[in-house]
């Protein structure tokens, strides 16, 4: 699929922004040459204020491009009528939909809008597609609820179902995981990932949630504050250090080995840690939060400072225990919390 010669979405020399003439504000000066293929999930990443939404809205045809051109399935987007464009691109936006007083089924059914006649009456085929979209997003239990009574996660799934019912080759989602708790975020991203593979749609998601994007994106378009855009497989962008430079802010470090951001730079006392599995990972995090610099015992750090405190994690009677060797004394603890108390 990736070798499909005709991309679903292509931009040539695109410049995105607001206004015309002298009052022009262009957060994404480009010029951008982008392509999105069928079966591809692309994450548009960037810090707040980098122009993600502006670029997405421009690509979706909600606002005109300042310069350059956009092609949707080979046709110039400017030449498509709104009704034609609606059969190519469906959207999930950040606009509030709560006021509408719509029940969930009717809201999803609105996705068939571009296909229905002047009265908006649904045919059996339309209803079948609505039912499919409802099944694919797993919102059967919500059908008779009003949109206003749903949680943020539920409501986002309903909006996704509406976009699916619109049955377009391209789908764009603006910050779909904003306001969601972690399980809902992962669930939504998983759902999108599966949908792309199953339906062969091209999906563009704007988000600032790097860790999720790294897991599901086939390609990342990384937008920087100045408007430059780097693109590539997420793994490549990690390895060549582009993530680090873009998200570089004081006190925040991108850890290449884990793909996460670290808030706490170990600057305080050194401590060594040995053990296996998950407890090591989480103990390390807890120690770093407390300001320790954590190192394995064999590192050069240890040789320079042979007197550093040492934490050994082991198992006793099927339970994890933490053994702290400090100034020649040894203490045993049964939780991270009690270990941290002892270190204070």
């Amino acid at each position, binding site marked *: 699929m990736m070798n499909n010669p005709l991309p679903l979405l292509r931009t040539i020399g695109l410049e995105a922004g607001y206004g015309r003439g002298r009052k022009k504000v262009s957060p994404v000066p480009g010029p951008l040459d982008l392509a999105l293929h069928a079966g591809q999930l692309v994450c548009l990443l960037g810090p707040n204020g980098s122009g993600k939404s502006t670029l997405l809205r421009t690509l979706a045809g909600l606002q005109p491009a300042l310069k350059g051109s956009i092609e949707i399935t080979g046709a110039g987007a400017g030449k498509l009528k*709104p009704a034609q464009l*609606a059969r190519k691109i469906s*959207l999930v936006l950040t606009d509030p*939909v709560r006021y509408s007083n719509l029940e969930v089924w009717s809201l999803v059914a609105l996705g068939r809008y571009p296909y229905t006649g002047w009265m908006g009456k649904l045919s059996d085929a339309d209803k079948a597609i609505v039912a*499919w979209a409802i099944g*694919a997003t797993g919102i059967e239990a919500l059908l008779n609820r009003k949109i206003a009574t749903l949680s943020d996660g539920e409501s986002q799934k309903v909006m996704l179902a509406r976009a699916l019912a619109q049955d377009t080759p391209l789908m764009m989602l603006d910050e779909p995981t904003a306001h969601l708790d972690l399980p809902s975020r992962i669930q939504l991203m998983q759902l999108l990932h599966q949908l792309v593979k199953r339906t062969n749609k091209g999906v563009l998601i704007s988000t600032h949630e790097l860790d999720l994007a790294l897991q599901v994106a086939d390609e990342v378009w990384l937008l920087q504050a100045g408007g430059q855009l780097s693109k590539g497989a997420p793994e490549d962008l990690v390895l060549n250090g582009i993530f680090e430079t873009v998200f570089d802010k004081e006190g925040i470090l991108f850890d290449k080995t884990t793909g996460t951001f670290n808030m706490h730079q170990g600057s305080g006392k050194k401590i060594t840690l040995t053990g296996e599995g998950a407890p090591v990972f989480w103990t390390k995090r807890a120690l770093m939060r407390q300001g320790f610099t954590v190192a394995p015992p064999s590192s050069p750090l240890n040789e320079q400072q042979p007197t550093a405190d040492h934490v050994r994690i082991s198992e006793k009677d099927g339970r994890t225990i933490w053994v702290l060797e400090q100034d020649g004394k040894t203490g045993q603890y049964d939780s991270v919390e009690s270990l941290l108390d002892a270190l204070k």
Partner: protein
Amino acid sequence: MEATQLSPSAGIIQYATDKRKKALILAGLCLLLLIVFLLDIIIGSVRIPLREVFKVIFSHTENDTWRYIVEKIRIPKAATAVLAGCGLSVGGLQMQTLFRNPLADPSVLGVTAGASLGVAMIMLAGGSIATLYTIKELGISGSWLIIVAACMGAAAIMLLVMSISGTIKDNVMMLIIGIMIGTITLSVISIWQYFSSPELIKDYLLWTFGSLDGVTGSQLYLLMLAVAIGLIISFLSSKLLDALLLGENYARSMGLTAKRARIIIICSTSLLAGSITAFCGPIGFIGIAVPHIVRSLFNTSNHRILIPGCCLIGTILMLLCDMIAQLPGSQTVLPINIITALVGAPVVIWVVLHRNTISRQ
């Protein structure tokens, strides 16, 4: 495709039973409408028995006074109430959907204020004796001059609002501009009132109280035509209105041409509100209250149901208000505008408190 394999889910079956329930409510309302319509003809300063009313309508009655009252006063008045009830409620519904604002009504476009300006110009200009003579001769509400002036005032403001609506991008801006134009217009009227004599102001104030009387003959046909055109445009745009429920961006992503839709909706609302204000004076509250009652009763946002629902409930409420205004058993008639506010406001409060139809933004 997987779609064909999936059987309709429980929600869709539920949806079908809902539909049957809605049809039942609709039928019940039609019956209620008929009853209220007949009651409105019977009740008044002169009580006319139901049998006589039927005789007037369907055959022949010997009592010429009763026939005159029924044919020339009661039926035109009830018909005017029907038209005003339909037009104002549907106009209100359209404004609430277009602006996604539960407090919007037809007057937010400034059309009502425009009609008032037209009337004020005629009444308060006060220079021409011919003007005053016509008003005195024909009565305030029935005067063609007043109607023409109100229509022209409403049309002028409507054209202004439309020309602005073609150039701006979003509906919130449109809402603010509409309200501001209305405020400016009303201020102009206030200046005029300030420099006018008390007698002229009294005439104008009487017009602002609103009245369903005096719209007869060719005037009634004209009003009927204007309201019918407005309602037909409105019903034909129910699909546009449905799409606008999710806001302008979503509507555009579904293929709606936002500017064209806005112009169509403003056009039909102006026609409805403008013509009714011209003939009956500014009647408040029906436009805000009725859409809320309908949404809560039918529990839907589908405009194909809401628009006929608004026509029914709007009509019933308007006829009820008219009956209350007659103060049954007395010779006094209260201005209709007072009654619609007295009845409408508690209804809105009740709906807001008891039904969760106006959801949190």
